[in-house]
């Protein structure tokens, strides 16, 4: 057990704990905050697994932009909806069942294969190398992602229109 393994397990515990807390909160805002912690832990994991660039991107985009957007929308809808109604078993049962079953199957799949026990080798990639790789090999995907972002922008504007003009739509 060397230092890196220790770091991995510590990060893993952090991620899992904060995700569990995020999933089980009653108030949506609490949930979002815990999720931000989870994403930060995820960023550390990415750094450990060899990509400091992606770690930074995770913090900036995911934790910084996406979660903030969530907070905005929560606050827009907050006044009318109030707290969520109870945590009954019949709502949680299918979820727990599905998750558990799927996870069990995944474990069996992973550990029945010999390559599941191969230890990973450390490596790190600088942003420059990563960028060169992306733009040389997967430039089309990058372009498509940008197009997708544009589409998202248009859709967001259209759907999020205010009541005045949105109601004229017969849809």
């Amino acid at each position, binding site marked *: 057990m060397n230092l890196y393994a220790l770091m991995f397990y510590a990060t893993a515990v952090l991620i899992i704990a904060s995700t569990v807390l995020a999933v089980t909160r009653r108030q949506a805002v609490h949930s979002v905050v815990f999720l931000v912690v989870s994403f930060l832990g995820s960023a550390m994991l990415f750094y450990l697994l*060899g990509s400091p660039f*992606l770690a930074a991107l995770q913090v900036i985009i995911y934790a910084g932009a*996406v979660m903030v957007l969530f907070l905005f929308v929560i606050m827009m809808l907050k006044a009318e909806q109030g707290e969520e109604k109870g945590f009954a078993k019949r709502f949680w049962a299918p979820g727990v069942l599905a998750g558990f079953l799927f996870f069990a199957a995944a474990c069996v799949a992973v550990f029945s294969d010999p390559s*599941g026990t191969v230890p*990973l080798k450390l490596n790190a990639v600088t942003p420059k190398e990563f960028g060169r790789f992306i733009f040389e090999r997967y430039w089309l995907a990058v372009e498509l992602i940008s197009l997708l972002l544009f589409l998202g922008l248009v859709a967001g504007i259209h759907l999020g229109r205010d009541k005045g003009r949105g109601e004229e739509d017969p849809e």
Partner: protein
Amino acid sequence: MIVPYGHVLVLAGIIFCLGLTCVVARRNLIMVLIGVEIMLNGAAVAFMGSGLLWQRLEGQAFVLFILGIAATEVSVGLALILHAYRRSGSVDPDTYSVLKG
């Protein structure tokens, strides 16, 4: 040497299943969307681990794409939730039962 590959996949699986539980069990559409985000995060961890196993950069490239897609999908999804909320007055997924039976 860090950890066996299987452990990384187990971690990814746990994150993914937690996200699945969140999607299925919550009665607030926004929480459902948060669950989807968690699931995407789990997939990203898996990709990273696999890229490191085979020492290829494709794994990391795909994590970049996941990031982009997640951002797009969140914005469109939240816009949809707003729209639906304004039309029906509730964010409980159980009330959207027009497709019942």
